[in-house]
């Protein structure tokens, strides 16, 4: 079992995921470093990712696209803001237009990854933070379906997560 916990903070606009693996931090680091490994897990199941560029160093840029079920391509980019192998990686993840240029209308998510040795394995913590409230709202709109219906328990759960 990999994921051991997650925490959502609607006010700080962060999502934290903690996972544990039976592999040393150096090996877990490789799934981030090696673009051929990275593209096996980055995209959602129906939107596999292809990394065309992966400049894995401080200030480095990556460019990738994800291919949807109908063949539609969605372009994305990373900019690495902090890197300390094999312990810490921070990067911004955003959308790009058809030519791979940054789409400034779309949200940017900051992702901070920490790998800690845990016995013979690794604990991986990823913290996603949304740059601004309006970006959060744009993402919400993108993921939304029509006709939402609310159960009270969902609000309780949401508010209990402070």
């Amino acid at each position, binding site marked *: 079992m990999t994921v051991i916990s997650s925490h959502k903070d609607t006010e700080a606009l962060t999502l934290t995921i903690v996972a544990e693996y039976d592999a040393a931090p150096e090996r877990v680091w490789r799934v981030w470093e090696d673009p051929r490994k990275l593209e096996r897990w980055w995209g959602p199941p129906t939107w596999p990712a292809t990394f065309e560029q992966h400049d894995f160093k401080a200030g480095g840029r990556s460019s990738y696209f994800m291919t949807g079920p109908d063949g539609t391509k969605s372009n994305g980019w990373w900019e690495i803001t902090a890197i300390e192998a094999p312990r810490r990686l921070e990067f911004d993840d955003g959308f790009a237009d058809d030519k791979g240029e940054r789409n400034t209308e779309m949200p940017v998510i900051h992702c901070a990854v920490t790998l800690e040795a845990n016995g013979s394995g690794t604990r991986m913590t990823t913290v996603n933070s949304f740059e601004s409230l309006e970006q959060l709202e744009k993402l919400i709109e993108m993921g939304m379906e029509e006709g939402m219906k609310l159960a009270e328990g969902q609000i*309780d759960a949401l508010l209990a997560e402070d």
Partner: protein
Amino acid sequence: MYNHVVVSHLDDAEIDRIFHALADATRRDIVTRVLRQEESISQLARRYDMSFAAVQKHVAVLARASLVVKQRSGREQLVHGNPEVLHKAARLLDEYEQIWRHRADAIGDILSEEDE
């Protein structure tokens, strides 16, 4: 999340009001209560260790953010919740959580394949 749904135009000022309104424990408590059941401002005021005027101000902040709706009923001001916005925020984070759970599992699969 990556589904190319056209993003509708949004009023940024309104979004800021919503999140500002939720960044206060009393106001979150008021939202929770009036989502379950409509309450008057005087009923709400009895629940908190603060003046009627202070509670009224909190309700006004929530109403400006459309998190609650105020309705006059005789001499009473009734307050009920409007859960749509909270639900949107929860949905977003839920979807992100799903994406990350999938990623974490896929990393686990890659690592165990390498072991074989």
